[in-house]
């Protein structure tokens, strides 16, 4: 948990009269001078954006960034295709079996509860946010989602404390998030700023308002594009652009399930004599993490039975050993993926009313491009190599000459 006593807070004012709450460690300078030689990198995560949406005509600013920089059209999110693990992979450069963060939601065997991985102590691997500080650089986080703010905790030099938060979605709207990002750059000018823009993702998840999904999605695309445009304008107007690397990507893609395509595994497990009451499910949209909670002596037979039942359930695409997906022990005994157009809803069919969905392989393709005026950015190029969320940290590390972490990265620099 955060130690409130060792943080200092500053409420920064913006031109419109709004104020933004930032925190940092005690004793950290609250402003640094902007110099044209200063190296800067910005990672902008358009949460839940599909790669085809960048060129849809509704995102002209993002399209211009993509087309003017280094595009990686073969980019993929990594298992589990959820927000927290992929943001962690971006900042650590390692897979979940090394970071300890395989999913948004896990069954915590110690606490006997299904919970989000939103605590700073859940992340077991150093991120570039603190490693850069060890080398004398400053870093900042502007994360629109409460659980992201939670897991990254006080790792960055400067942190935006997200507000206001939309009650249903648990995120701050993009306009506020970008206001904060701009304010952070103007006030503190960190070398690295990590920004999560949540509207694209959240309108899919929280479409309970009676608006059509398509209209809400389009509005979000236009909004995030406008906000990214503001950020680019700031960099260019203040002379920062020429020495900046701007990485834009999504943490995962988005799929939309049909109301009649729900998968509920819990009733099937409960109906089985061996499994009844002894299987926990951590639901992650299009992926269910399955945990055997019965006797360890019966685990082999039980996991076999869980696999059989899950694989035979309509809508289930595949069932995997978490080790094959490099997820680590916290991901449980098995991972079940759904097909495109389906979603898990456990423990009951009405438990998950959200049509927008990700976590399953259909949602692996993501936009991933690197722009900015930095000399290492090759202009207007497209690259056929595989790029993944785990490549972000090595890319940032390369910008600042950071050495590889202990054990090396699992990703590769894409500059």
């Amino acid at each position, binding site marked *: 948990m955060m130690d409130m006593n060792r943080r200092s807070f500053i409420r920064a004012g913006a031109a419109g009269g709004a104020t933004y709450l930032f925190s940092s460690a005690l004793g950290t300078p609250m402003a640094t001078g902007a110099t044209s030689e200063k190296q800067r990198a910005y990672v902008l995560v358009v949460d839940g954006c599909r790669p085809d949406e960048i*060129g849809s005509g509704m995102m002209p600013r993002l399209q211009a960034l993509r087309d003017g920089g280094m595009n990686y*059209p*073969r980019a993929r999110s990594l298992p589990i295709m959820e927000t927290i693990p992929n943001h962690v992979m971006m900042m650590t450069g390692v897979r979940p079996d090394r970071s300890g963060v395989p999913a948004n939601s896990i069954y915590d065997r110690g606490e006997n509860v299904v919970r989000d991985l939103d605590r700073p102590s859940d992340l077991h691997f150093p991120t570039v946010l603190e490693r850069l500080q060890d080398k004398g650089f400053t870093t900042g986080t502007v994360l629109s989602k409460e659980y992201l703010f939670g897991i990254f905790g006080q790792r960055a030099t400067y942190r935006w404390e997200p507000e206001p938060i939309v009650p249903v979605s648990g995120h701050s709207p993009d306009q506020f998030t970008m206001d904060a990002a701009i304010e952070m750059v103007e006030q503190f000018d960190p070398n690295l700023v990590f920004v999560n823009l949540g509207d694209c993702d959240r309108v899919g998840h929280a479409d309970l308002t009676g608006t059509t999904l398509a209209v809400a999605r389009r509005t979000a695309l236009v909004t995030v594009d406008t906000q990214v445009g503001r950020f680019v304008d700031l960099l260019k107007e203040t002379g920062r652009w020429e020495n900046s690397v701007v990485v834009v990507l999504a943490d995962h893609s988005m799929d939309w399930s049909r109301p009649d395509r729900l998968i509920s595994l819990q009733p099937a497990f409960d109906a089985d004599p061996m499994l009844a009451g002894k299987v926990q499910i951590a639901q992650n949209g299009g992926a269910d993490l399955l945990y055997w909670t019965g006797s360890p002596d019966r685990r082999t037979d039980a996991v076999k039975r869980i696999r059989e039942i899950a694989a035979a359930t309509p809508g289930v695409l595949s069932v995997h050993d978490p080790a094959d997906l490099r997820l680590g022990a916290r991901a449980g005994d098995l991972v079940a993926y759904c097909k495109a157009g389906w979603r898990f809803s456990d423990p009951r069919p009405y438990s998950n009313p959200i049509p927008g969905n990700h976590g399953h392989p*259909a949602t692996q393709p993501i936009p991933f491009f690197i722009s900015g005026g930095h000399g290492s950015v090759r202009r207007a190029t497209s*690259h056929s190599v*595989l790029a993944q969320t785990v490549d972000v940290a090595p890319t940032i590390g390369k910008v600042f000459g950071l050495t590889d972490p202990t054990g090396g990265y699992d990703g590769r620099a894409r500059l």
Partner: protein
Amino acid sequence: MKRDEMTLDRRSLLTASAAGAGALALGVSLPERAGAAANPYFQHGVASGDPHPHSVILWTRVTPTTAAVPGSGRGPVVQVTWQIARDRRFSNVVSKGTFATGATRDHTVKLEATGLRPRTTYFYRFHYNGVASRTGQTKTAPAYTSSPDNLRFGVVSCANLQAGWFSAYRHLAKRNDLDAVLHLGDYLYEYAPGEYGYGNANKDIRPHVPKKEMVALGDYRKRHAQYKQDADLQALHAKVPFIVTWDDHEVTNDEWKNGAENHDPATEGSYAARKRRAHRAYDEWMPARLGDTVALNDGTALFRNLRFGTLADLSMLDLRSYRSEQVAVPIADGAVSDPARTITGNGQMRWLKDTLSKDRAQWRLIGNPVMIAPVVFPPLPNDVTSAVNDVTGLLPEDGSPYNVDQWDGYTADRHELFAHLADHGVNNTVFLTGDIHSGWACDLPLDAGTYPVTRSVATEFVCTSVTSNNLKDITNNPSRTTSLAVEAGIQTTNRHVKYLNFDDHGYSVLDVTSKRTQMDYFVITDRADPKATSSWTASWATDADTQQVHAVDGPVTR
């Protein structure tokens, strides 16, 4: 494709041919223009194929004695030497060897030259009795881990020698920018003279040899030999490696696993035996790996994958050898959607899905002998069809297809493949298709009935025929007249069909970059003219990650 796909059945076409038989003499007297005719030992040219990063197939046929003509079963066992070099003058030979051949393999020579460098141009030739073959040029594939800026392929299909001259091949051979030629099937035709020629009258511009439908092994060998003596085809084979698959006419029309429309067991014997003979001759005469090797008698599986660095991989399909029989026409019982029926066969479907899931390259090119885009009248939403079927079981799932010889006749396999692309997030899959003697560019919707509200999962570019008859030839109407109405009708009821040209013959050029994959469509003037000219007519592309096609202003520059 059925040669009479559009409007005419076989019987009426045969009748029409007889009526036009008087015109046959026109073609008989024309020479084959065989470029190697002056070479006594290497009369069938040279060829290369299936380029890998470190190897490529080299092919020729030697005629050691005047009696050792193709299909004769005569002639001695001889040793043919081969060389492959970095330069046209063979001052830098990188590999060489000797190959023994004889009548048991129709004196064909087919070997794999190994130890080569990736994406490198090589020159090769053969020697027999002190005489050299013509020099062939070939090119290896990029290394698996390399990221080439582009790849460029010629794309062709449906070359019926009786229907005209292979000018499309000649114009492709003039280019110096191709990595390979993709031949998507109907490389040769089985028909006897007078059965399937130029236009509705079936005029034979060049009559087939032998002068009968090919059925026996010797027939297939002779027909392959005739095609391989065409100067335009020889020029193209000698210029770039071919990557081939077969459609039906390499055996016989409308082939399926255990039979074919153009096979009569009562008069032509066992179909299985005929297919074995056809495949044997194909293995002998084509620069391709059957059974994954260049050896004979080790299997004839032709579906295979070729890789071109991180930019593209190419899966060549065989959609004839394993397919269920075509449903009877007219269709009234929804049989095209029967999940027990298959166009790929279960083994090939598993292989294809596994290959697509491996994510080894950005573009997933699929050499697809018959069209996969739904072309139906009218397309209905799947839900509507399902509801109707709940009551009647009458409607095929994707609407009423116009051609049950293509994937439209096997919709369960198509659904399985498209769902696989969607379920696994496989983007940038491009089907490259021949068979239907017309040019198309299509999005490939998961549900044609609700498109474009629902999304496309891949794209398809269809090349036209080198010579085989198209719609205007069959209707005997001028180009761009009646076809326009048909094209408009199809595009109206099939919103995913973005480009359609039923009238022209020619070839295509596919250019692949990380940003987009583009198909340029080139057409030739009259295929009865051995000097037919070529011109660009249209270009369509799919941008990375869009799964949709769009028009492009002009072709890629050389």
